[in-house]
C-alpha cells in the first residue's frame, strides 16, 4: 500500500470520516460494527493496517469477512467467509463476556461527557420526535473497551445535556436518584472502558482520561478549532488540538470506491475515477 495522501478535491467528507474511523482500529482487535459507514471503515482497516481484526455483527455473524459490503448487519452478505453465522444471543454473550475491544456507534446528540442519545428529541414522556431507539448502542458501549461515535456535526447535536441518555458516557446517571457520577464509580467491577472518540463531520474529539470530558483532538482539513467550538452548545476544550485530521490516502480511496463500496451504498464518490 502506498501511504500517499489524497488532495482535498479527491475525497469527500464521508471518505474522510471513513478513513479516520478506520484508523481507530488496531490489528488483532475484536470489533463490533453497526450498519453503514462503520462497516466500510472496519472493512477498510481489515484491508489495510489491521488484516487480523475480527469483525462481529450484532445480528449473529462472528469473525465476518464479507466479500461484498452488507447493507445491514442482518444482511445475507454477512455470512459468506465468516467463522460463524449464529444469532444475537451469541453476539451479545460474547460482548458481555468481555471479548470486544472496540465498537463503532452513531448518535443524534452527544454531551460533553460522551453521553449519546438515539431515542427521542425533547422530553421522553412528551417527545418532539421519537427516533429509532437504542438498538445495541448502550450494550456495545457498556461491554467494549473502547467505543467510537461517528456523527453529523450540527450545533444542536453537541449539547450540554442530551434529551435522553441512550448510551453511557463518562459521567452517567446513578439510579434511582439520577445524580451524575463518574462511569467508573457506577460500573465498579463491570467497568471496561467507554467512549474513546467522536468523529464528527467537523473534527475528531477525545475524552480526558481523568475527568472524562470531551476535547478537540484534530480538525478536519479546512476547519479551525474556534470554528468547531462555535459548533458546540457546550464550552469545547480546544487547548489540546494535536493538528489536522489526516486525509485519506489514494490507496484507501481506491479500496473504498472500487473494492468495498463500488455501489455507493454508504459512501458517495466525489470524483469520477478516484
Amino acid at each position, binding site marked *: 500500500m502506498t501511504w500517499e495522501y489524497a488532495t482535498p478535491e479527491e475525497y469527500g467528507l464521508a471518505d474522510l470520516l471513513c478513513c479516520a474511523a478506520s484508523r481507530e482500529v488496531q490489528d488483532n482487535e475484536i470489533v463490533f460494527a453497526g450498519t*453503514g459507514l462503520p462497516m466500510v471503515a472496519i472493512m477498510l482497516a481489515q484491508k489495510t493496517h489491521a488484516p487480523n481484526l475480527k469483525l462481529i455483527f450484532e*445480528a449473529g455473524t462472528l469473525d465476518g469477512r464479507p466479500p461484498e459490503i452488507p447493507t445491514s448487519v*442482518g444482511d445475507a452478505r454477512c455470512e459468506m467467509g465468516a467463522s460463524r453465522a449464529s444469532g444475537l*444471543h451469541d453476539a451479545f454473550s460474547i460482548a458481555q463476556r468481555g471479548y470486544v475491544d472496540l465498537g463503532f456507534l452513531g448518535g443524534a446528540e452527544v454531551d460533553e461527557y460522551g453521553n449519546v442519545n438515539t*431515542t427521542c428529541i425533547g422530553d421522553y414522556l412528551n417527545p418532539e420526535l421519537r427516533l429509532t*431507539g437504542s*438498538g445495541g448502542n448502550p450494550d456495545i458501549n457498556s461491554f467494549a473497551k473502547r467505543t467510537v461515535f461517528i456523527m453529523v456535526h450540527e450545533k444542536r447535536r453537541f449539547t450540554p445535556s442530551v434529551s435522553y441518555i441512550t448510551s453511557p458516557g463518562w459521567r*452517567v446517571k446513578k439510579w434511582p436518584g439520577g445524580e451524575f457520577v463518574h462511569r467508573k464509580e457506577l460500573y465498579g467491577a463491570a467497568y471496561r472502558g467507554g467512549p474513546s472518540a467522536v468523529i464528527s463531520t467537523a473534527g475528531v474529539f477525545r475524552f480526558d482520561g481523568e475527568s472524562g470530558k470531551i476535547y478537540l483532538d484534530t480538525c478536519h482539513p479546512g476547519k479551525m478549532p474556534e470554528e468547531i467550538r462555535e459548533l458546540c452548545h457546550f464550552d469545547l476544550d480546544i487547548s489540546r488540538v494535536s493538528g489536522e485530521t489526516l486525509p485519506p490516502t489514494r490507496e484507501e480511496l481506491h479500496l473504498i470506491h472500487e473494492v468495498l463500496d463500488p455501489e455507493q*451504498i454508504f459512501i458517495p464518490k466525489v470524483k469520477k475515477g478516484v
Partner: protein
Amino acid sequence: MSGKRITLQQAAEIIKDGASLTFSGFTIWRRPMAIVFELIRQGRKGLHLIEVNGGPQTEFLVGAGCVDIWESCWVGHELYGKYGANLSRKVGAKEILVEDYSHAEMMFRFAAAASGAPYVATQTSLGTDIHNPAYDTLGRAGLRDGKRIPKEKYVFTDDPFFGAGPQVLVPAAKVDIAVMCVQQVGEEGTVRVSGQYYSDPEAARAADITIVMAEEIVPEEYLRRESDRNTITSFEVDYILECPYGAHPTGMFGRYDVDGAFLKDFYARTRTQEGFDAFAREWVFGHDQMSYLEKLGWPRMLSLKANTALNYSTGIKRGQ
C-alpha cells in the same frame, strides 16, 4: 402428517385481539410479512408487540392501528428508512405505549423466557435513561400485573458470588405467540434456518404458541437426516404454513434480498396517517398473497432472487 398445517387466514385468526406477539428475523430480514398483512386485513386490535428489535412488520401493524403496546429497542428500515415514522407519529400522539429496553436486554429477556427462568442478570446500559424509573411506561399505565407484564421493569442488585459489579435483573419476555418466517419447515414442525438465525430459537421457545410460515414445507424425514443442522424442534412448533415470498419486502438468506425500493417507498409515503392508509389500500387491503405477488410482478421478484452460490442477489441495485 402431524395436522399442524394451516392457511394464512387461519394463522392470523389464531392471533386474537389483545394478544402479545413476537416475530422471527432481524430489522429488515425474515419478517413474517404475509401474516402481518393478513392481520391488518382482519382488523386486529390491541396487540402487545414484544420484539428483540422492530422493523417493517412493526411499522405496518402500528400504522394500521393494530398495536397498543410496543416493547423493544429499535425500529426502522435500516438504509431504506432511518426510523419508524408510524411509531414515531403514534408516540407523539400518545396513541401507543412504548416500553424501552436495550437490545441486549431484550435478547437476554427472550433467552430467560426460553430457558424457563423468570429473569436474568446483566451488566448493560448502566447509567442510561433506559434505566430511569420515571420512564417505566407500563408501570405508569398501571399495567404491571405480574402475569404477562412483570411486576417490575428492572431490579437493580449486586453480585453476591464474585463481586462482579452492579447487576441489572431483567424479566423474562413472556409472549402468547411467536410468528416466524423461515426457509424450511418439516411436516411435523422441525425448522431449519439457513444463515444467521438472529433470535429465532429463543423467540419460538419463549412463546406459548409458535406459528411457522416457511418458504417451503419439506418432508420431515429430509430434515431429520441431518438433525444437527436444525434450528427449532418439532414440538416447539404448533402450526405451520407454506407461503412463498412470505417475508417480502424483507429479505431471506439464500432465497431473496430485501426489496429496498419497496421499503423506501413505504417509508416516504407513510409519514402521515393518510399516507399510511393510502399505502395499505394499495398493497394490503383487497389483496391476498398471490395478487400481492402479481402486483409486484416477475421482473421485480427475479431481480431480488438470491444467487444460490452466494445466498444473496447479484441483480439488485443497492446504492445511489
